[in-house]
Structures are given as structure tokens and as C-alpha cells.
């Protein structure tokens, strides 16, 4: 079964010579017809002894192929033509066999024959990911005893620890060795972990980096309720129908200060504040997906403002060009 998944050549690259690569589907729920898509790149050093590492990008709703495999830590990076590949000088499969998973179903090429499966949360995502790993070990039993690490970034700050807990609990309740996984550790980068702490961190970071004014920073800190409304849920739609007189003015003030923060920040690359934005497409899809999931947080609103500004600039540039011509 594994050999059917082997990839011997990559378009725009050629034959794969220094490591083995596999990709395909593993069913995680046969009744629902739910299957997750993976790409697996064996270690080019010592696949027998090196650890096995699962990598998950976030969103929620983003592909680990687009981020992890093709942009960050896989063996290839795309050239600007979008048709050919170049070598990544620091691929993680120099040190580990790396498994990139599109999760949950409906991300990338992962699918379900049950349309309601599109409604999903952390519990089923973790359960499906564990089912995927158990299925993977059946297809690649030679990796069953390798140390297993779970890794990822952004919303994988939820995926990874939840999956780790699912595996730890699963190992405890396993009825046979087939139901166990040799989990050794986890790695998470810039993880969404606790919305109240993470959002306060974002506001402080913007102020510390001289990107927003003292008044705006203090206005957000004073008016936005980080503890009770999570990632700064702001705006009329989150007010209870009988909004009390004490809450509503603060929510409105919070909203106003967040708008001011967006204006002060400008169309910045929220992923990397000192890097350029992609013009004209300033939107980084992973951040946008997180924004959709989080709602109108200061960070989320800022990204949207960046996109809107970028679009406006593009339009103005286009209008200007039209006038000139």
C-alpha cells in the first residue's frame, strides 16, 4: 500500500534521488467517508533511526502542504514562476522523517463524503489526526517504533497539544500495541494558546515597537475586556440583547480604539513586521483564516485593514494609470 503512494518524481524538479517521498490518502472515518491527505518525506540521513515528525499548519483551515511542505521546511521551495522548484537549503528531513498533513477534512485535498463534516472543532480534529497516525503506522509499519514528534505553528498551537493529549490518553486506554503511538515530544511555533494573553501580547508588541500611539494602546488596554470576551470580541453583534449600561460603552470604546490602531499601523505585514508585503496581494491567507476564526480582534482587524488599503492602493494606481493613458 505504501509503494502505491510513492512519488518518484516532482514536476519542475525531476526524479527524487536523495530521499523517498510518499503521498496519498488515509481514511480516518470509513462510515462518513472522511480521508486526510498527507505528504511524507523520509529522512535523507537515517530514516531507520531518525525521528518521525508530524507538521501541522494552522488557520484553522490552512494546508500543511502549502505552508510547511512547500514554503517552510520541506525539501523544495517554489520558484517565482510557480512551475519549477528549487532546493530548500535547510529542509527538516535532513534530521527527521517529516509528515505533512492536511487537516481537518476539507482542507487542501482532504475530503469527506459527509458535507456536515465541514463543521468541526478541536476534539474531532485531534481524534481524526490520531486515527490518521494509526492508519499511517499500518501503511508504514517500519516507522512504528521511531520516536514521534508533533509540530506546527499558529493555530497548531491548538492542534498539537490537543493531539498530544489524545495520543497520551489513547496510549493509556489502548487494547493492543496497534492502538499506541511512540510519542516523544511536541514543538509549537508562534502558537495561539490563550486568546486573552496572546491578544494583550499583540497590543503590547505593537506599542513596544512604536507602531501605535500611547493613547491607542492605553485605550485598548483600558476598554477591551481580554478575560471575558476572549480575543477582543468587539462590536454590537457580541453585546447581549439587554446590554447593560456599564458594558456597552467599554465595548464601543474598545472598538473605536481598535479602529484607531488599524489606522496607525497601516498596511503592514502582520506575519513579519520588518518584511515587505506582497503587492498587490497583501493578504496572507493563513493570517486571514485565523482572522475569520477569531473575529474582529485587533490583529484581525489590522490584517483586514491592510488588505483593504492594499486593494485601494491598487485601485488608485490603476485609476492613475488609466488617467495617464
Amino acid at each position, binding site marked *: 500500500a505504501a509503494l502505491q503512494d510513492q512519488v518518484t518524481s516532482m514536476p519542475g524538479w525531476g526524479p527524487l534521488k536523495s530521499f523517498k517521498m510518499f503521498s496519498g490518502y488515509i481514511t480516518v472515518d470509513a462510515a462518513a467517508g472522511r480521508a486526510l491527505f498527507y505528504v511524507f518525506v523520509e529522512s535523507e540521513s537515517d530514516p531507520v533511526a531518525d525521528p518521525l515528525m508530524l507538521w501541522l499548519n494552522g488557520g484553522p483551515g490552512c494546508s500543511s502542504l502549502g505552508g510547511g511542505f512547500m514554503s517552510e521546511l520541506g525539501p523544495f521551495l517554489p520558484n517565482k514562476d510557480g512551475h519549477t522548484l528549487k532546493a530548500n537549503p535547510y529542509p527538516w528531513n535532513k534530521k527527521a522523517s517529516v509528515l505533512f498533513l492536511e487537516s481537518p477534512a476539507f482542507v487542501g485535498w482532504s475530503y469527506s463524503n459527509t458535507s456536515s463534516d465541514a*463543521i468541526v472543532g478541536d476534539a474531532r480534529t485531534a481524534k481524526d489526526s490520531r486515527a490518521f497516525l494509526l492508519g499511517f503506522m499500518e501503511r508504514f509499519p517500519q516507522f512504528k517504533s521511531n520516536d514521534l514528534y508533533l509540530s506546527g505553528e499558529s493555530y497548531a498551537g491548538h492542534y498539537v497539544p490537543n493531539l498530544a493529549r489524545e495520543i497520551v490518553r489513547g496510549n493509556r486506554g489502548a487494547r493492543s500495541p496497534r492502538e499506541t503511538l511512540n510519542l516523544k515530544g511536541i514543538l509549537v511555533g508562534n502558537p495561539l494558546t490563550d486568546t486573552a494573553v496572546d491578544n494583550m501580547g499583540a497590543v503590547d508588541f505593537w506599542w513596544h515597537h512604536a507602531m501605535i500611539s500611547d493613547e491607542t494602546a492605553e485605550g485598548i488596554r483600558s476598554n477591551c475586556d481580554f478575560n471575558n470576551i476572549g480575543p477582543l470580541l468587539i462590536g454590537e453583534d457580541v453585546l447581549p440583547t439587554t446590554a447593560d449600561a456599564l458594558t456597552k460603552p467599554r465595548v464601543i470604546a474598545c472598538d473605536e480604539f481598535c479602529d484607531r490602531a488599524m489606522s496607525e499601523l497601516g498596511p503592514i505585514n502582520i506575519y513579519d513586521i520588518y518584511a515587505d508585503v506582497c503587492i498587490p496581494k497583501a493578504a496572507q491567507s493563513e493570517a486571514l483564516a485565523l482572522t475569520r476564526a477569531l473575529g474582529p480582534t485587533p490583529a484581525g482587524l489590522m490584517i483586514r485593514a491592510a488588505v483593504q488599503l492594499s486593494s485601494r492602493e491598487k485601485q488608485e494606481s490603476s485609476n492613475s494609470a488609466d488617467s495617464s493613458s
Partner: protein
Amino acid sequence: SLTDEDPSKYDPCVDNEVETYMNLPEVQKALHANQTVILPWRWTDCTEKVQYSRSDVLASMLPVYEELLASGSLRILVFSGDVDGILPVVGTRRWVSGLGLPIKSAWRPWLSPTRQVGGHVIEYEGLIFASVRNAGHMVPYVQPERMFHLLTSFLNEES
């Protein structure tokens, strides 16, 4: 100054290039994917099809970490690119510190193979936190050498 010959340079438009590549029929065939030329949708890096539980997005993961740490069986590395503006290093330091774990090795700089400061690190019982200097949200992409060094050190169980 971005050139194809220098893959370490940050390309803010990489998502567009990846999306072009992943939608090539020959790529989908090579990867054994259900081909989107047959199915009525394009491969996209992030999808709006998934309707993720908002309450789960808002839920804190700190109780999960507490359970994992109590199991005593896992090695944990939390890393953070220090110029990410959406999930910045400031908040991550706070929640890591808030776990209240005993400190094994105090805050200090760590050096990359080129002897530059790659970031800073603090080691707790059961968890290591490391910043990666001048890395954004996608640390392995923006600072590949530093991240690879961090990865290697962690997997080798080196300090």
C-alpha cells in the same frame, strides 16, 4: 534584491507561487491527489469550507499543557519568531511563564552555527521556550538556518 538564487531571502508572495504550483494538473497527478481539475474547486492554501468551532478557537490551551506536563513523558519546545505581529513573542513568554514551572536554566542568548545570536532561551522542567531572532510567524521559512539549528539541538537533546 530577492532572487531565485538566494532561497533564504523572504519572499512575501510565496503563497501565490505555491498555489500556482499546487494547481498544476501534473503536480496533482504526481502527488496522487484527487485532482481539482476534475473536482469543482481549486486547491487553496487556506479554505473557507471549514466551519471551525468558535468556542474552541477561544478556548485556552493552558489546561491541556498542564495535563501534558503532569504526564511527565513528553519533551516540549515552544519557539517564537520575535518579529511576528499577530502572535508575538510577548504573549507567548507570558503564558509560558504563567505555567509556573521550575526554571532549570535561566534566560540567555543562544548562538547559531555562524556565531550570531539566534534568539534567547529559557529552560523549565518539562518545557523549553526559545525565541528566534528576526523571524516572523513562519519561523522555518523566514529564518531557516536558525530554526534548523534549534530543531537539531532539541532533537539531539542538547542544551
